[in-house]
């Protein structure tokens, strides 16, 4: 961990007044948000509120029109590209599961696992025993051990979700961004995911976007509600759930 | 001793970009061979043509040449159109001591023991044409547009022409040199610029545009209304076949310089045309309803017949002996003149003719040399060529 990503300030991620416009449509309107080191933060909000867009901004996929995004104390993410951001320790699970369909489950994890990712290392270095152990563990965790040699494209929707979570864990990021991780999972698996995130919190900073309120209730300490590209409410779940505006735009009566 | 047939190679592209020009040369060679066979062959042996398709691909030309010479053991090869294809097969002919007859006008600057050049050298086409344009009969042009496709043949020809024009007192300001890429198909700008240039005095265009660009060029000339009476265009690569693709009416009066035109009126040509028409019809050559002859076809025809005569003189197909026997061969060519192979320089003595396009796509011969002209493969307009020997190196 280098100087810049040092988290001694206690803030893992800090967004200030971020604006994003698509063809005149303002998807993010002055979004400000900060997440502490080791925090597990849930983000909720209506469809189209800008949650995914926010993650796109953090991971460098979308450039904000204005505003600042800092990782740790001084790493300005708006000046970095995707691999740099990933290398700095931010990992992401996409809303729509994206895995490498032509590679096997094992190979998917192998690519993700934390290692020297330079061209030269990829060409000459053998996979380390440690990495193999780590992949083995992960395969157990995501219950795909018996599919390790299968092409990821053949997995069912839920299995892909799990694989992607596995890939995210394999990267050992400092900050995990999860966009609707339990969509399409059974209740049982939702519970397992909740447990998993609980154990990860503390060592990692985690930001989860979900619409499944039971799941949110199971993990959330602090919840942020996004609406029309800005923060509508923030606080403990119970408080947020009883906020009239949140009920109006999001939860329904 | 051998009584079997004599194999003869034919190396013309039947596909790819050059097929447009070369296909008829294959048919012409086949026709000449058939004619010879009908008269009993050569040295009592029939000729057996071996046709291959080098597909307008230069390395393939070399490969096919090697195959013809080494595997098929042909006694002679008739083939090539572009200079680059000839250059590509040359080393093979030299290595295997083969014999090539090359039937197309070219830029010169070459003289090889294994090749006989039956097309024109620059002094048998380009220079007389420009001389004509400068004459009173040709319109007395004072300014010249040298327009060509951007490759070696036009560039060289124009280099020679520029030197020639200088020698005639034409200043550089009165010469406009323009090139277009191969396959160029939009001549609007060029024609407009020619028009502009022509406002400075009587102007003629010397076109070394080759291949597919000619049709769009002439169509544009017609559309832009640039008439031959104002700005005549003389071309070195446009003959009857090339005009097949254009409506010639707007082009009446534009010129071409060749050593043969289909419209020539003489018994030899009448017979040549008749033979070709009959051959085209009986062998299903495309467009039998409008059989055209042109200069490279004549050159091919001369080549096949001269080779036959040389073999008969040498009494063998042995390449070195045939080469020796070729010197001074004469053939009453369809041009109406007797073409003669030079004693030394492997090029034909040919008449130079200048024709004007007629509405039916034929040429009206408006000028010709009194007799055959000897080729100068090493142009005197290129520095240093005065030292060149006018015969192939012996090594």
């Amino acid at each position, binding site marked *: 961990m280098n100087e810049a990503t040092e988290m001694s300030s206690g803030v893992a991620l800090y967004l200030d007044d971020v604006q994003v416009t*698509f063809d005149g*449509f303002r998807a993010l309107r002055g979004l400000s948000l900060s997440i502490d080191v080791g925090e597990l933060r849930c983000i909720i*909000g*209506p*469809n*189209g*509120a800008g*949650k*995914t*867009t926010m993650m796109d901004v953090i991971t460098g996929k979308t450039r904000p029109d204005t505003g600042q995004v800092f990782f740790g104390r001084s790493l300005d993410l708006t000046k970095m590209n995707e691999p740099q951001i990933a290398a700095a320790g931010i990992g992401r699970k996409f*809303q*729509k599961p994206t895995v490498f369909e032509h590679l096997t489950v094992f190979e998917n994890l192998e690519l993700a696992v934390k290692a020297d990712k330079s061209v030269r290392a990829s060409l000459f270095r053998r996979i380390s025993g440690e990495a193999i152990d780590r992949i083995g563990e992960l395969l157990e965790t995501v219950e795909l051990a018996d599919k390790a040699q299968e092409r990821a494209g*053949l*997995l*069912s*929707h*839920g*299995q892909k*979700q*799990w694989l992607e979570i596995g890939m995210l864990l394999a990267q050992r990021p400092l900050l995990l961004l999860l966009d*609707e991780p339990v*969509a*399409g*999972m*059974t*209740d*049982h*698996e939702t*519970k397992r995911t909740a447990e998993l995130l609980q154990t990860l919190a503390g060592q990692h900073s985690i930001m989860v976007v979900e*619409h*499944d*309120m039971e799941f949110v209730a199971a993990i959330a300490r602090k919840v942020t509600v996004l609406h029309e590209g800005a923060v509508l409410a923030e606080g403990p779940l119970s408080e947020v759930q009883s906020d009239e505006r949140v009920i109006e*735009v*999001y*939860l*329904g*009566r | 001793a051998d009584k079997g047939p004599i194999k003869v190679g034919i190396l013309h592209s039947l596909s790819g970009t050059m097929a447009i020009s070369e296909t008829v040369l294959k048919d012409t060679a086949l026709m000449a061979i058939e004619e010879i066979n009908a008269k009993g062959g050569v040295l009592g042996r029939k000729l057996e043509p071996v046709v291959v398709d080098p597909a307008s691909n230069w390395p393939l030309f070399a490969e096919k040449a090697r195959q013809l010479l080494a595997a098929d053991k042909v006694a002679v090869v008739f083939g090539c159109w572009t200079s680059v294809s000839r250059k590509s097969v040359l080393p093979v002919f030299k290595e295997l001591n083969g014999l090539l007859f090359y039937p197309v006008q070219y830029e010169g600057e070459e003289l090889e023991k294994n090749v006989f050049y039956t097309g024109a050298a620059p002094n048998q086409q380009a220079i007389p044409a420009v001389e004509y344009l400068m004459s009173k009969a040709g319109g007395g042009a004072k300014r010249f547009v040298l327009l060509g496709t951007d490759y070696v043949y036009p560039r060289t020809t124009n280099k020679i022409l520029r030197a020639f024009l200088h020698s005639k007192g034409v200043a550089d300001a009165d010469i406009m040199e323009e090139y277009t890429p191969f396959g160029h198909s939009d001549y609007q700008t060029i024609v407009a610029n020619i028009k502009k240039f022509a406002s400075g005095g009587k102007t003629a265009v010397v076109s070394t545009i080759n291949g597919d660009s000619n049709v769009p060029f002439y169509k544009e000339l017609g559309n832009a209304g640039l008439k031959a009476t104002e700005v005549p265009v003389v071309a070195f690569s446009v003959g009857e076949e090339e005009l097949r693709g254009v409506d010639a009416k707007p082009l009446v009066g534009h010129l071409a310089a060749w050593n043969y035109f289909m419209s020539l009126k003489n018994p030899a040509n009448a017979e040549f045309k008749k033979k070709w028409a009959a051959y085209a019809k009986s062998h299903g050559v495309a467009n039998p309803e409008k059989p055209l002859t042109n200069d490279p076809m004549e050159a091919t025809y001369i080549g096949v017949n001269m080779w036959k005569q040389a073999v008969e003189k040498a009494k063998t197909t042995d390449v070195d002996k045939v080469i020796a026997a070729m010197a001074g061969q004469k053939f009453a060519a369809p041009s109406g003149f007797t073409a003669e192979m030079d004693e030394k320089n492997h090029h034909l003595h040919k008449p130079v003719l200048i024709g004007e396009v007629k509405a039916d796509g034929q040429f009206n011969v408006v000028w010709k040399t009194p007799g055959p002209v000897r080729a100068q493969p090493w142009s005197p307009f290129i520095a240093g060529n005065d030292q060149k020997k006018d015969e192939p190196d012996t090594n």
Partner: protein
Amino acid sequence: MLEISGLHQYYGSSHILRDVSFTAPQGACTVLLGRNGVGKTTLLRSIMGVTPIRGGAIRLDGVDISQLTPNQRAARGVAYVPQGREIFSRLTVEENLLMGMAVKPAGKARSVPSEIYEMFPVLKEMLRRRGGDLSGGQQQQLAIARALVSDPKLIILDEPTEGIQPSIIKLIGEVIKSLSRRGDLAILLVEQFYDFGRDLADHYLVMSRGSIVRQGLGADMDKDGIRDFVAL
């Protein structure tokens, strides 16, 4: 009414659906539950005709449609909300909806019925936006709307609530309820969200490793211990 009998399906050599039989009656909502990877999506795709089946029959109102192409099935009134939304990403929202009406004769498919916008007001705001630009949940709404505008006889929905905000899930629940109450429509719903499924189910089916292992009335789901059963 949809009747499935003895359905078998393979991907290559792996046997995915094993002798699946059930009926989904008209005027009722049949909910299919099962863990990840048991073959729910495969079943729906087989009904739609997108993946070929190896054996068995699929009858719609008594006629076997298992040999028909997907578009012929759609023409007979099957509408499909696939998992993963599968909207036409470069068509506008409006065009996506018009595509939903492709089975209707051209004259009747010039404009989108306005009821749909009452259900999904966000779509109305975004008519000119390209489908692919919508947020995940908006796309899901569009996919449902696209199926509904075709006036189907049978609608099959694959986890339609995935990624949708709670208030709209409630709304969708109400819509499905009212549709099934209307009586002319058979609904087959695949759902992971147990509470949502239970509230809607007239009948339920539970699938495990490619077979239907439990079925019953929706009202009995809690009693039958389906919540725990699915979790195992």
